[in-house]
């Protein structure tokens, strides 16, 4: 197909406190059906979405964190995390529940420039 576009989903919100993280994930899963070049960027509080060990029983909300591990099966394998955002939150790559590529702020900016479409959540 000649009209494959580069889509980037930019995730900047923590999970559960707002609906953005879950909405983003659902749109990503739907977009996967259209065979586009999809990247997911996690920056600012968005990196919290990928934190291991989420247990939502106490807040009676669906724990959607396991679904990030299903993305590979949907051929969505470009997951990026901003290094500074991790560090500001006392997190490292080992705290995350999926394999990601950790980027510097400069690399994040450059990757954003390469996209045809950016969807912000």
């Amino acid at each position, binding site marked *: 197909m000649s009209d494959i576009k580069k889509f980037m989903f930019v995730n900047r919100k*923590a999970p*559960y406190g707002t609906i953005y993280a879950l909405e983003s994930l659902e749109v990503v899963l739907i977009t996967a059906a259209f065979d586009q070049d999809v990247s997911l960027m996690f920056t600012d*509080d968005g990196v*919290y979405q990928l934190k291991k*060990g989420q*247990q939502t029983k106490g*807040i009676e909300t669906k724990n959607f*964190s396991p679904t990030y591990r299903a993305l590979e099966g949907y051929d969505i394998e470009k997951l990026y995390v901003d290094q500074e955002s991790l560090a*500001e939150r*006392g997190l490292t790559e080992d705290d995350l529940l999926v394999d990601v590529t950790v980027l510097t702020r400069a690399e994040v900016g450059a990757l954003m420039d390469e996209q045809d479409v950016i969807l912000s959540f």
Partner: protein
Amino acid sequence: MLHIINRSPLSDKALENCLNTATGGDILLIEDAVYAATAGNAFEARLRAAMGKFKISVLRPDLEARGMADRLVEGAAFVDYAGFVELVAANKTCQSWL
């Protein structure tokens, strides 16, 4: 007075403004504000510095939901929903920094 915060300190000024404005009392961190009381986050030092003036409580189910219950900062206390109610009942006034 009880101050309730529900926004992440790294993306919203609610907690910062509360710490700068309020004269003291109880602070209860809920929802995304619980990240403020996790070890190693960039707001930790600011929160610790405020501990002389404020008593910091953190709603445990919200910390558990976010996978952060194992890294509560020293000096802050867990509360459950019953503890939330007790805090509200124990204070004459209550302000939510929405």
